[in-house]
């Protein structure tokens, strides 16, 4: 029954026009960035590496598909939570607002299975959105600019990753980015259980991200102990996978924090939804 419910949820997401907004937005944004880098990418790189040129002489061009893909990801991953919340925040509350939640809850499928299928559908949507971003950012960039070594600026300076090592790191980075974005999806689906309108969970999710990001960036001693445990602190942990040597202990900690967030949110959502009076 759970699979049938997951299938139903996927059909609904596919049929809703708003589901395609994310794909459209990614296509447009990536298109604009690729066009800009294709036309004037060298100037952009000169600007970024300008401070290094006093100590370092760079021969040839660093501009290649891998670097462009990395730049695109850095620019866009921060926008993805909104696109994810736009669809996943509507999964329960949208049904409540439409009145269709009554039809679903009065079926033999348990409320927990129903909600788990919503969390499952949110995972599928987040995954597909990320795959699309990956195809656009890395795939199309490679097609236009060709492969090459990846130059990454880190706190310790400029690191060059050989071309053959880059693609496995992209795959790992996408897996970690998925976990970070799924945490956002879990928040918005859980908020969606609490509300009976579509807008509330989407705005609530974005507000929470903003508040946590603010706490994470404010240099206040009070927040120092909290900061490592906020999911927003680990949203960009995927970038560490391009460092050499890879800081695996930091990455494992990030995976732990994000997983605990997901499990706790889903646990709360299941507990709440199982007892909720459906009044719409």
């Amino acid at each position, binding site marked *: *029954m759970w699979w*049938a*419910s997951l*299938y*139903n949820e996927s*059909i*609904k997401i596919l*049929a*809703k*026009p708003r589901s395609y907004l994310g794909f459209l937005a990614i296509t447009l944004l990536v298109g604009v960035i690729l066009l800009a880098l294709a036309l004037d990418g060298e100037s952009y790189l000169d600007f970024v590496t300008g401070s290094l040129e006093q100590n370092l002489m760079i021969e040839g061009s660093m501009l290649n598909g891998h670097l462009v893909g990395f730049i695109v990801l850095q620019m866009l991953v921060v926008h993805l939570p909104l696109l994810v919340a736009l669809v996943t925040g509507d999964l329960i509350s949208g049904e409540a607002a*439409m*009145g*269709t939640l*009554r*039809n*679903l*809850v*009065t*079926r*033999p*499928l*348990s409320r927990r299975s129903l909600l788990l299928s919503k969390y499952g559908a949110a995972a599928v949507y987040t995954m597909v959105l990320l795959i699309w971003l990956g195809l656009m950012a890395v795939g199309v960039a490679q097609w236009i600019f060709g492969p090459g070594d990846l130059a990454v600026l880190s706190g310790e300076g400029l690191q060059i990753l050989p071309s053959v090592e880059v693609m496995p790191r992209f795959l790992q980075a996408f897996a970690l980015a998925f976990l970070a974005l799924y945490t956002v999806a879990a928040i918005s689906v859980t908020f969606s259980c609490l509300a009976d309108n579509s807008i509330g969970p989407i705005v609530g999710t974005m507000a929470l991200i903003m508040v946590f990001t603010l706490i994470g960036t404010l240099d206040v001693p009070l927040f120092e102990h909290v900061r490592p445990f906020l999911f927003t602190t680990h949203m960009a942990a995927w970038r560490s996978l391009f460092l050499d040597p890879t800081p695996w202990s930091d990455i494992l900690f990030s995976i732990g924090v994000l997983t605990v967030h997901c499990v706790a949110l889903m646990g709360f959502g299941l507990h709440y939804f199982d*007892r909720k*009076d*459906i*009044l719409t």
Partner: protein
Amino acid sequence: MAHPIIEAQGLVKAYGSFKAVDDLSFALKEGSVMGFLGPNGAGKSTTLRMLVDLIRPVSGNLRLFGLDYHRHRGRILSRIGCLIEKPDFYKYLGALQNLELLGRASGIRQPRTKAMEMLEFVGLRGREKDAVSSFSHGMRQRLGLAQCLMHDPDLIILDEPGTGLDPQGIVDMREMILKLNRDQGKTILLSSHHLPEVEAVATHLVVMNRGRCLVQGSASDLLSQQNRQIRLEVDQVKEALECVSSLLSRDQYRLGEGGVLHLSLSRDKLPALIKTLVERGIAVYAVESRQQLEDFYMLILHQNNQE
């Protein structure tokens, strides 16, 4: 002997200090059609929502098909079809897709075949691919009935199924309800403000007000206990009125338009009254006796509101 399909004992549902349903007990037997009546805010919809686990009672005991909701929720809901309030569907999907989706959620193995069968039953065959957003209210109501019947339930709960339907739609809905009950043996719980619709199909009645059950029982028993409404046409209205006033109390008669007397009295007292009128030389042109659910319902509510 018919088994009870619904057994509700002392159900209470409160929102803060307000009790939407207060110590409600009733039973519904297999194969019957129960009319669930009451004014707005009586607690009918809250009760119906409790029956399909949309909301949970704060206290009381609710058993359906002899099973407890806490342990057998899935088994109970697999035997109930319901149309609560208005029929809502995914407007961006077609009628067939909507039914297929709900069929899958009910565990039906071949939802498309069953959905087409149901669309045929409710007269929507040929419109299966049209988006629900293009449907009229009556068509959505029919689709609501189709989704309710998708998994061949034993108990059908209908909340205001006639709302927004034109006269032909109301007749069709009534015919469908009767067909489901008589031909397929479905037990039906029908909540409606449209009393003639309920009167035409109900074998049992429950009347609620302020969250409580005022009366319940067989429709024929309940209605026969009440005074009948008599419409009397005579030639000497003044004399007839004097005669009636000597036999009945003031609240049992009134003079209507065109000199027609309206009386409220039990069936067994009517022959004696007619005899007296005739003996006094008053010609009786017409006697119309009726026992309507509406009269019964209004009387019950009137009595309850005066308490």
